[in-house]
């Protein structure tokens, strides 16, 4: 019998050990499929920093480098400058890329660094147990905002893709979600384009994806998807935020 669906060649055989209902696995799968479809597994190097994203080193079948918290885009820059013909991507959580790594995110985009960044936004620091992130919503309860995020104290959440889109070197900036099959298909298209932008040497590309964290949100997997739809989707700008000339032609 013909096998019509299996594990993507872009992923290793190792079973995901993310928490039940966490959508990291979905995003991994999409990236794995894109690596396989573009036939770039053998020439791709991934970089993942600290946090749950740090587990991803073992799940992708391409070479992978572990970076310090927030430093993935600086590390990716070093790799890309050493090996300009290779495909280099970072896989970072929102707590990583939008807090401790902000300077590197902005400057990688400003330089038009020819790398692809995948940002996974679940509105908390996941691995450390659900602390407030720069992306935590106003009023959202976390372990470090136990009375809800007070914007007078901590400021409103950062919409990083929008911020990066203002920089000339950023040629493709998109934001999607993996809460429904339709959005998952859309997210894959964005990821694919972000890698194609790099293949064509056009400049910096980033895809931000809204993701669930049932464990730290204290919700069931199904309720987490609903929470994301009700609370995160209205706040964060969705869709292809910036598609410059060359990227639009892809």
């Amino acid at each position, binding site marked *: 019998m013909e096998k019509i669906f299996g594990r993507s060649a872009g992923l290793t055989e190792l079973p995901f050990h993310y928490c039940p209902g966490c959508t990291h696995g979905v995003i991994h799968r999409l990236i794995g499929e894109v690596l396989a479809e573009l036939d770039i597994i053998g020439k791709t190097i991934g970089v993942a920093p600290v946090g749950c994203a740090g587990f991803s*080193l073992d799940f992708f079948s391409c*070479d*992978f*480098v572990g*970076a*310090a918290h927030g430093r993935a885009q600086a590390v990716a820059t*070093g790799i890309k*400058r*050493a090996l300009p013909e290779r495909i280099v991507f970072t896989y970072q959580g929102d707590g990583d890329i939008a807090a401790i790594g902000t*300077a590197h995110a902005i400057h990688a985009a400003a330089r038009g660094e020819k790398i692809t960044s995948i940002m996974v936004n679940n509105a908390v620091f996941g691995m450390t147990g659900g602390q407030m992130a720069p992306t935590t919503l106003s009023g959202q309860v976390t372990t470090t905002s136990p009375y809800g995020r007070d914007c007078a104290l901590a400021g409103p959440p950062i919409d990083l893709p929008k911020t990066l889109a203002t920089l000339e070197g950023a040629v493709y900036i998109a934001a999607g979600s993996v809460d429904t099959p339709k959005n998952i298909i859309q997210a894959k298209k964005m990821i694919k384009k972000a890698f194609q932008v790099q293949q064509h040497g056009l400049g910096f590309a980033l895809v931000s994806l809204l993701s669930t964290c049932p464990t730290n949100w204290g919700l069931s997997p199904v309720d987490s998807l609903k929470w994301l739809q009700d609370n995160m989707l209205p706040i964060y700008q969705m869709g292809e935020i910036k598609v410059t000339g060359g990227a639009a032609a892809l």
Partner: protein
Amino acid sequence: MPKVLMKGNEAVAEAAIRCGCKLFFGYPITPSTEIVEYLAKHLPQAGGTVLQGEDEIASINMCYGAATAGARVMTASSSPGFSLKQEGLSYLAAAELPVVVVNVNRTGPGLGGLGPSQSDYFQCTKGGGHGDYRLIVLAPSKGQELYDFTMEAFDLADRHRTPVLIMSDGFLGQMMEPIELKDPPAALLPPKDWITDGCEGRTKRKIASYSLTNEIGEANNLHWQAKFEQIRQTEQRWENFHADDADYLLVGYGTCGRIAKSVVLEGRKRGLKLGLIRPITLWPFPEKAFANLEKVKGILTVELNAGQMVEDVRLAVNCRTPVELHTRLGGMLPSENEILGKLTQVFALPAGEV
């Protein structure tokens, strides 16, 4: 071979180009800036790239990335900037990545001043970042050594898969001296069969320093410690300057080692049998240099800090010999007479001897 007059910082940069460094990531800071400036001008002509990072943290992490890709890579900074590199150095040590890092030491703590200093000795030799690790630290004392040791640093880094530090100072970096632009040594180095440059035609590799299993964490640490011990046994370097028959010994490195040489010659002219041990590797500290100096009556270490290397000298002689300290701080240098005077005072030498 004809010599070229150049600043110490430029000698470092020229040596890096000539021994195959293709990537430099840095951020300007006095008194190290000529390194990035010289490379920005000359490295592209040699087929390399200089990228000015958004900060020191970015620069050291760019080095980390380039090293995982197998490139010869360098960064340079001065004390406050070098502090910012400590996180990256800890990760580089754990991931066992060859990178050459130059610290043109200026004064501290805080912003400090631009004068020569050796006050980053602890930070360079004892780890500096988090966790148990050591880095090879080379201490040049003149322009030619800045050139030679830079080439040596790249080979040591590749041989041991470790970051290597060059501890210079504002005096050495800024001073112009004639430099012989030698070819790189023909070193036999291990193949870089561990790099992550894309897994086409081989199995996937990863480079990381993360372990959530304590048993694996301990095994990793034992592996690193075994490597540090092997380096400790094999890579101690020093210069023995009239030390074998010395009654009193000076210990100084870098700029102080250079001044101390003049003190030894001047002391001997005056009938005092002085010698010098000049550490060339600050880590591993050259404890072997002190093994057969039984007749030495006293040791004076000379440092541009409040007394940091003196601790390693005391450990090396294991309290067999009295060890005293002479220091200048905040960018000042000691004079020969000052050091001779200190020797006379602390070891109660007859004034006539000096």
